[in-house]
């Protein structure tokens, strides 16, 4: 988008905001609060905490795979709009990948706001048709023996991938594990590297 269009969109947004405030439908404080929530509190660190807990607590992992929303709520992360979250577990034989072909549905409560590539037409169109080619662009080359399952989130459910715990982390504390978990591994476009590598 060029600068003129940016200016126009910024102007339009400001006009909308001021009219809504004037009509008593929103306040500047509420807007600031929502922005701050996504800037500071809701991001992939939430998901990383969920993953690290699942790696270290088998009971928690069982609950997480059975009812993602409830297990995520246990850690204090509310699920946006009460959406049911389905957690799908990567194994050495099965790799999961999440996409939304119709819009850009994403598990906000655990991963925050989606990156631009997730919302891109290229990712939305290609992930279901050629997931291996897509993963190669993310430098993830999965052998043909690994089955790839692509989850197209088209309903009110949201999907999060539970990545594999990397080798060499047997002695890690939960806090150390949290720092290893990446956003992309929870979307399914990356694996988590072993720290010894």
């Amino acid at each position, binding site marked *: 988008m060029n600068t003129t269009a940016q200016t126009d969109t910024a102007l339009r947004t400001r006009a909308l905001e*001021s009219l809504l405030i004037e009509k*008593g*439908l929103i306040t500047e404080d509420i807007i600031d609060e929502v922005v701050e929530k996504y800037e500071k509190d809701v991001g992939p660190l939430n998901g990383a905490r969920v993953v690290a807990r699942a790696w270290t607590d088998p009971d928690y992992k069982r609950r997480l795979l059975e009812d993602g929303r409830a297990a995520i709520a246990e850690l204090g992360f509310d699920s946006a709009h009460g959406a049911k979250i389905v957690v799908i577990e990567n194994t050495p034989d099965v790799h999961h990948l999440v996409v939304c072909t119709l819009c850009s549905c994403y598990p906000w409560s655990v991963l925050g706001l989606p990156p631009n590539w997730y919302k891109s037409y290229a990712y939305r*169109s290609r992930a279901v048709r050629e997931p291996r080619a897509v993963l190669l662009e993310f430098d993830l080359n999965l052998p043909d023996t690994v089955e790839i399952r692509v989850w197209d989130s088209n*309903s009110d459910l949201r999907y999060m991938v539970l990545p594999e715990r990397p080798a060499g982390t047997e002695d890690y504390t939960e806090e150390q594990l949290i720092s290893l978990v990446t956003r992309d591994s929870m979307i399914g476009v990356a694996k988590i590297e072993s720290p010894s590598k």
Partner: protein
Amino acid sequence: MDGIHDMGGMHGFGPIEREENEPLFHHPWESRVLAISVATPVPIPGGSRNNIENMDPAHYLSSSYYEKWLYSRIKGLIDAGVLTPEEMETRMALFKNNPNAETPVHPAPDAVRAELVRSRPATPPQQKTDIQPQFSNGDRVRSRNIHPEGHTRLPRYVRGKYGTVTNYYGIYNLQDAELPTGCTNRQQPLYAVRFEASELWGSAAETKSAVYLDMWESYLEPV
């Protein structure tokens, strides 16, 4: 609707471009659009996604994510009778000619907050009913080949294709604008259905892969 938004399987969009150290927002207005969309207590007639899907295809393709949201929100507020196009034009002109014009401060923020809480109850969309699911895990099913003009969550690439039920999620409200023929209840069992890549993409399919899609019961036919 069979619109430009239904992108699964399309060719021509090129490689996936990633931005290193991508900021949360690329322009300050994006964060305002997000917050307004999340917090304004006015439901959009027909739904936000429906507005976005009905954008002119060229407009859709050339608009960013938050531009689509802004478009949808303004249209929704106008459709709901909350805003008029004239008000928007006048206010934009005011800010354009006088960038330092004061943003009004609403006198009763507590009332706004109360309205927000009232209009956005945090109830899960899952419904409690005595509806019994028609399909079980492992059942072979075929996706109906329907082409509704209104909003639907049944993407084109799967219509008419055979798959296998893998999960039953419970009863959810069908989000389509129209109920499919022969269907009388919006509250329907929701399943995950597995479609083999070869079923969807024929000889162009990659090795050993499958797509899982959430399907309301009225999208499915028994095989």
